[in-house]
């Protein structure tokens, strides 16, 4: 059986900020319909890598292909395939949740009836009075829900989530991962960065990144078995320690 072409193919990707190497020649694939967890401590290079995939950061060297398209040569087409949720959720704090959705739907070029339908769907998931509050006044869990909803408005096939669960309570995190599973069942491809190691269990595969390099990659169970570790925490600490010694 032939393997499907990767949804995301990253090859020898590097990013320098002046003399500092934030990403040091990493390569990985994300297969269509897969949930890949991008694990690493703060400053490891997760956000930089995701931003290079979206085209928000210039690539120093190496390449990124999205569904076979080079993201530097075909950026407008690549952008249409990607959904991106940033670390800070990046919603407009003085607008209500519904106004945020209306705005992002508008700039995505969503047809009015599609936008109306999307807003109705949001109202099913979150109580209407909450949706009419300014985003700055709603709990982080709701903000996260709205940010994910906004990211999905143009119906992208590939979704990049940068630390989507930071700052939200454990219950909201569980709910959020349920939604991510829902997306996977709808055929979406997901690359999710996190520094919460317990979230690795939700992923089909994980990439552990440290100091701009991928130090371990594979399905969580395979990695545990292969490395003889009892938990992801242990695996993670060991991978980082041994990388630090090299």
């Amino acid at each position, binding site marked *: 059986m032939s393997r499907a072409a990767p949804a995301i193919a990253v090859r020898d990707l590097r990013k320098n900020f002046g003399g500092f190497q934030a990403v040091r020649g990493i390569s990985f694939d994300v297969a269509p319909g897969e949930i890949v967890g991008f694990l690493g401590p703060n400053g490891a290079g997760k956000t930089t890598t995701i931003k290079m995939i979206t085209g*928000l950061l210039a690539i120093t060297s190496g390449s990124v292909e999205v569904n076979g398209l080079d993201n530097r040569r075909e950026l407008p087409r690549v*952008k249409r395939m990607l959904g991106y949720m940033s670390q800070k959720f*990046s919603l407009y704090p003085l607008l209500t949740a519904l106004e945020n959705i209306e705005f992002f739907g508008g700039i995505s070029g969503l047809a009015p009836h599609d936008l109306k339908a999307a807003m109705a769907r949001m109202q099913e998931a979150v109580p209407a009075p909450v949706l009419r509050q300014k985003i700055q006044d709603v709990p982080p869990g709701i903000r996260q829900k709205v940010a994910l909803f906004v990211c999905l408005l143009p119906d992208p096939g590939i979704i990049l989530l940068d630390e989507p669960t930071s700052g939200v309570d454990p219950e909201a995190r569980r709910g959020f991962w349920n939604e991510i599973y829902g997306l996977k069942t709808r055929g979406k491809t997901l690359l999710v960065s996190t520094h919460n190691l317990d979230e690795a269990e939700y992923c089909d595969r994980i990439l552990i990144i440290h100091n701009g390099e991928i130090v371990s990659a594979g399905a969580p169970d395979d990695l545990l078995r292969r490395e003889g570790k009892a938990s992801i925490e242990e695996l993670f600490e060991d991978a980082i320690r041994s990388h630090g010694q090299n």
Partner: protein
Amino acid sequence: MGRIKAIIVKEFLHILRDPRSLTMVFITPLVMIFILGYSVSYDLDRVDAAVIDHSQGRLSRQLVQSIAANGVFVLHGRGASLPLDRAEEMLRAGALRAIVVIPPGFDRRLAAGAAAEVGLVIDGSDVNVANLVQQYSERILLEFNAGLTAARGATGLPLRLDTKMYFNPEARSQFFFIPGLIAVIMLMISALLTSLSISRERESGSLALLFISPLRSGEIIVGKTVPYIIVALLDGAVILLFARFWFGIPLRGSLLVLLAFALLYIVAGLSLGILISTAAPTQRTAMLAALLITMLPSFLLSGFIFPLDSLSPVLRAVSYAIPATYFLRIIRGVVLKGAALRHFWFEGAMLLVLCAGLLAAATRKFGRQRKAAQ
């Protein structure tokens, strides 16, 4: 003592490690001292004036020569060929600062040993310049009088000056300052609005979402500036109404003419704000930069406080690149002199050039920044 020392050391480290603020703290006063202390004075190098000589006699020609020889007055018309209404039109358009009118019978009266009057019409819309023009004129007349009395051996002043201050007869300084302030405030508000709005979006991360959306850079700029054009126009209208009804500043010209130029001026200010936002990493820096870049030159180099004719040639050249230089003339002209569209071809063209240049630079820099990120 040790605890206070810790705070002092920490504060110094903060000051030293914030080079942008440090630059502003040291560069701004130096620039101000340079402009104020070295290059700006209240002395005029040039006063554009017309002389209408209805007398056409020996003494009237001598007086005209004295005025021309003064070195400050640049005469645009001599003799009686320039009609007064044409000269007044030039005064309204800002092409002249003063009109000297020598009445018929001037020579005859002086020859008969009687006193004669010379009419002096001054543009009062710039009170500082008007006062200087009056002082210079009085000095010329004093010398001329001294010559006359010495030649005739007579006492008393054979020649008197009848001065009329047009557009601001009471020489109220509010007439001069408030329209100028409106110009400065509108530029400052426009630049501040966009620079803060964009840098706020950059800090919150929402600009990144706009960048990866299908929006083109031009669309983002248009979308972000249109609301602020309306806000800045409303702001200008509120200040103008306040000036009209609280300070009694007249509105003698057409509001539509003012609106048309204000639109260009605001777009120039908003574009400047976008340019600032592309260089400023934080909202705080953007705000400081917008205030400095708009207020300092507009106050000192646009003719708001110091007449342009008093600036050194270098600073005068700089003043041509400041949008407030042109809008100031327009707002003073429309509000105080009732000047019309036809009086502002040069100012309008320069505002258009500056507006187009700043907008093109802002769009290019913003687009480049987006591209650089890609």
